[in-house]
């Protein structure tokens, strides 16, 4: 039986990982909600966010907060550029073309990253504010583990405000239901889609930077596995549904940490749990936990 302290440590770790998954999963679900497209490049956008922050701090010697802001802005712009160059020209093409384009963009970013950033892992410089370790009742945990859920909640609150209370948020919800009717109201659908990619990329960058402070090893292919898992989190929650993505993210993050904690002999299969989840969900609840009934295949 594990001690209470150890359990708390795992629980906190799980919540922290779940928060990161939630942030990234939202990007998948928002883009799917509006374009009915799985943005396969989303994991790579996440990776770019970490590298942008890394270079801003190491090559440009910026203070961490400035580096983070710049990384988030750059990632946002990058996400919108991907939409404009790889997805927008295919707006009226069959969905399969857009999907292939998404996979192509993903490979392109990964390989460009290998060429430009180098294939060797880089160590992310963690600012002391986030890296310091605190001791609460025998539980020793880095600050960042607590900061992650807090930042996640703040980001979610802002996101929900934008979606529910602002004009652009209303337009996003309208476009996700009916393109043509939105156009007839004078809504610039392309602009709305662009903003959606921007928001998703901002969240991916926030998630990426926090990820890098938690697991401070940067690699050009580091976005693949978190990307896949967060896609699964979005599907588990019900793709297209933001609350579902958050719940899916937490379920995946918590169970990944806790299963390994309770059954250490399974730790080699750590990455496999998400896929088992995906199979189970697709078998028994294909619409996801909070999803609408899915009528079309993608």
């Amino acid at each position: 039986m594990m001690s209470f302290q150890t359990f708390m440590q795992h629980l906190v770790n799980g919540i922290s990982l779940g928060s990161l998954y939630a942030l990234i999963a939202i990007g998948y679900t928002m883009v799917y909600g509006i374009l009915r497209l799985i943005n396969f490049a989303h994991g790579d956008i996440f990776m770019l966010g970490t590298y942008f922050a890394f270079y801003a701090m190491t090559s440009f010697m910026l203070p961490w907060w400035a580096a983070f802001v710049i990384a988030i802005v750059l990632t946002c712009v990058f996400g919108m550029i991907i939409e404009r160059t790889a997805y927008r020209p295919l707006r009226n093409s069959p969905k399969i073309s857009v999907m292939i384009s998404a996979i192509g963009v993903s490979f392109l970013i990964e390989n460009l990253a290998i060429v430009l950033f180098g294939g060797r892992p880089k160590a992310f410089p963690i600012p002391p504010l986030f890296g310091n370790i605190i001791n609460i009742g025998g539980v020793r945990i880095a600050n960042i583990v607590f900061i992650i859920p807090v930042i996640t909640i703040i980001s979610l609150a802002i996101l929900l405000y934008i979606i529910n209370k602002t004009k652009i948020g209303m337009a996003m919800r309208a476009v996700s239901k009916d393109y043509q009717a939105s156009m007839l109201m004078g809504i610039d659908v392309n602009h709305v889609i662009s903003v959606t990619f921007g928001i998703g990329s901002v969240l991916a960058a926030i998630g990426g930077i926090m990820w890098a402070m938690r697991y401070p090893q940067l690699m050009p292919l580091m976005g693949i596995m978190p990307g896949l898992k967060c896609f699964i989190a979005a599907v588990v929650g019900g793709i297209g549904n933001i609350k579902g993505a958050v719940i899916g993210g937490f379920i995946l993050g918590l169970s990944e940490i806790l299963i390994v904690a309770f059954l250490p002999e399974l730790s080699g299969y750590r990455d496999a749990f998400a896929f088992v989840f995906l199979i189970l969900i697709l078998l028994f609840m294909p619409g996801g936990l909070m999803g609408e009934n899915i009528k079309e295949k993608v």
Partner: protein
Amino acid sequence: MLKINNLNVFYGGIHALKGINIDVEEGKIISLIGANGAGKTTTLGTIMGLVKPSEGTIYYEGEPIINRRTKDIVKKGIVLAPEGRRIFPNLTVEENLILGAYVRENKEAIKKDMQWVYSLFPRLKERMWQKGGTMSGGEQQMLAVGRALMTKPKILMLDEPSLGLAPLIVKDIFEIIKQIHKEGVTILLIEQNAKAALQIADYGYVLETGKVVLEGKGMELLNNEEVQKAYLGEAQ
């Protein structure tokens, strides 16, 4: 006000509009009638910039509007309440109306128009916090018209506003159309319910397989033998 000249549209390989001429005069109610597939909806879609014509011109207040973006056409004061209502089912009534005013900036004027729409459709005010998709067909049609009015149109185009509604509600809707018209909005109405559409129309056009086959004053068309045979049925 709105002048359509020799409009030709191809849909895939189909010649959907074959040189249509329509003239919408300011302050009038104009009706387009015709069977399914006659080209009515295509005509309105082309005016809104959703469909690109292969030939022909559309002038609005003396200015060509073909190849303009839909957004700019809405800004100029033309709006379409589309067939099948197409309200946003996941948004509340109030949010649907706010989106109707998407291209407008003047918050005071928007608020005033919201009150105007609520006075036209008290039903919508009662349901302002309800999701659009949970309302009845008639209420959704009111919302679709209200949402279109929120763009502050000079020309309101209505595509089959009576589709799938009970006769009593159809009567209400047509009363409201008349009232909106009285308040200074020019109306271009598409209907399969030819009788109702011609009764309120100043001028009407009959479309058949992409061509205008007849036009005239509303009452004249209503009494026209061919129109009666083809669109109003023997029993009328």
